[in-house]
């Protein structure tokens, strides 16, 4: 731990300097906090105002009269192009898309990581490098062939198609997470279990899985955030009716018909952001661990 106060205290004049510095420090931190909070504040207050109040009032004012009308419209009445059913159907699309995609990619990552970390065979490291490298490609480079492949498989424009895509391009990261976690478990554990007659799956099931809760949480949160917030795959591989919530949000905001309802836009944006925000508030520690694990590889 670094442990530095801004200046060592020597005598009363130093003390005044120290207090002034402390104030400066808190002021700066407060200004930064305002910078990060302001958009959220503006989104929430705007979503609670009437259009009339938005036109006449100030961007950063609290609503004079709180109305949930915009929220109702955003959830079940706003138009995404020609349909006007609000975000609700698309929100559920995202839910039924994210759950299997997260589950499958996490399970595959766990078993792959287990093999690569503990059952080394010739070429295992090469395979790992190739998988790792797949995490870094810009997905634009696979969009065109994937669109054709989904067509050939008969799942173009469907939710199973999107699940498939998210699983495929999630494996690299989930494998990386589990591999880095399992690599720190001593190999003697597997050797001892083998001597006792336990097989590949039994060792995984009764030794490794019970140790894995933290990394499962990290991986699930990472994958859920990625998949829920995805826009590129969603907009490329869905059609009317199967779009995930991010695509529907963008359609609501950028639809050109009728009066621009900024309060509805903001309510819709908050609805689309709520699940990942909730995860962040509840399990922020694991969220950060996933972020840093994804960027600083071991």
């Amino acid at each position, binding site marked *: 731990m670094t442990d530095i106060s801004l200046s060592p205290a020597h005598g009363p004049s130093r003390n005044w300097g120290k207090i002034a510095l402390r104030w400066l420090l808190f002021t700066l931190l407060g200004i930064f906090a305002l910078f990060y909070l302001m958009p959220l504040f503006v*989104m929430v207050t705007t979503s609670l105002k009437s259009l009339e109040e938005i036109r006449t009032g100030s961007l950063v004012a609290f609503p004079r009269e709180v109305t949930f009308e915009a929220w109702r419209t955003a959830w079940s009445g706003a138009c995404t192009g020609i349909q006007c059913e609000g975000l609700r159907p698309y929100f559920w699309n995202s839910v039924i898309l994210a759950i299997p995609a997260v589950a499958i990619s996490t399970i595959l990552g766990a078993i792959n990581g287990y*093999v690569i970390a503990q059952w080394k065979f010739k070429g295992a490291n090469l395979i790992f490098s190739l998988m790792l490298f797949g995490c870094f490609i810009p997905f634009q480079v696979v969009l065109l062939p994937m669109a054709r492949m989904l067509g050939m498989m008969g799942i173009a424009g469907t939710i199973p198609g999107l699940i498939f895509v998210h699983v495929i391009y999630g494996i690299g990261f989930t494998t990386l997470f589990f591999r880095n976690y399992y690599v720190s478990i001593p190999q003697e554990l597997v050797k001892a279990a083998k001597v006792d007659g336990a097989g590949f799956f039994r060792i995984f099931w009764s030794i490794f899985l019970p140790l894995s809760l933290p990394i499962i949480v990290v991986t699930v949160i990472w994958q859920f955030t990625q998949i829920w917030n995805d826009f590129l795959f969603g907009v490329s591989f869905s059609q009317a009716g199967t779009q995930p919530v991010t695509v529907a949000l963008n359609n609501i905001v950028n639809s050109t018909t009728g009066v621009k309802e900024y309060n509805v836009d903001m309510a819709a944006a908050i609805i689309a952001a709520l699940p990942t925000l909730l995860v962040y508030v509840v399990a922020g520690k694991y969220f950060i661990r996933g972020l840093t694990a994804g960027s600083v590889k071991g």
Partner: protein
Amino acid sequence: MTEWLERHIPKMVLAPSFIAILVFVYGFIAWTAWVSLTRSRLLPKYEIEGIIQYERLFASPRFDTAMMNLFIFGTLFIIISMVLGLLIAILLDQKIRTEGVLRTIYLYPMALSMIVTGTAWKWIMNPGLGIEKMVRDWGFENFSFDWVIDPDMAIYAVVIAGVWQASGFVMALFLAGLRSVDGEIIKAAQVDGIPSWRIYSAIIIPSMAPIFLSAFIVLAHLAIKSFDLVIALTGGGPGYATDLPATYMYAMAFSRGDIGQAASSAMVMMAVVFAIIVPYLYSELRVKHD
């Protein structure tokens, strides 16, 4: 038989994922590379014609704008996020009692979809009703802030939203780095009466070089892949003033029906990513062998 099975189970378990990666990553890259060398338009053609698509690409003023924008956006986004992230990390490192709460506030944008970020900032920077109106209502009648609809300034509006989203993450990386510096050295320096700013600039920050590199890689990667943010904030406009290679590729692939251009621009994007990632991976691997 069971022994053979037992010996080969690990490979068989890994095989499906490996084959999937081979086909859907490497096979698909090869497909895109191949098609980028053909005359494909609405439908892919497979006769190799050379580099005509790349010639078209680099002759296109729109792609030229997109590359320039990537350069401007990438540079500013990376530098500002790093400076801001480091500054906040150092401020937070001064034994602040409310550190946990502040950290949560600084980092939450990273949990949001870029579409949400873009939507929020589009509204905040709305020329008629956003910040511009707010400041005018305060009495500054001539204040103007219409970057999102100004072709010359719109890319800087994207930078603002991007920095807002990613700088907290850089802060978290740097904060972890500051905390991992050897405390003994710092204590020794303090005992010698070396001022704090000197301790930071001469001891702590230089020892965090690998974290700077990681942060740079992550931010560069984010910048090159930025697609959602531009779509939500400006839609690539006004005109194509805020096009990035990613939005150019998407427009060619899905609305202009020009597969050849889509494939070649995707390959250029990959080349840019490689130019940044490969030296990094190479240096990482070399360090481990030493």
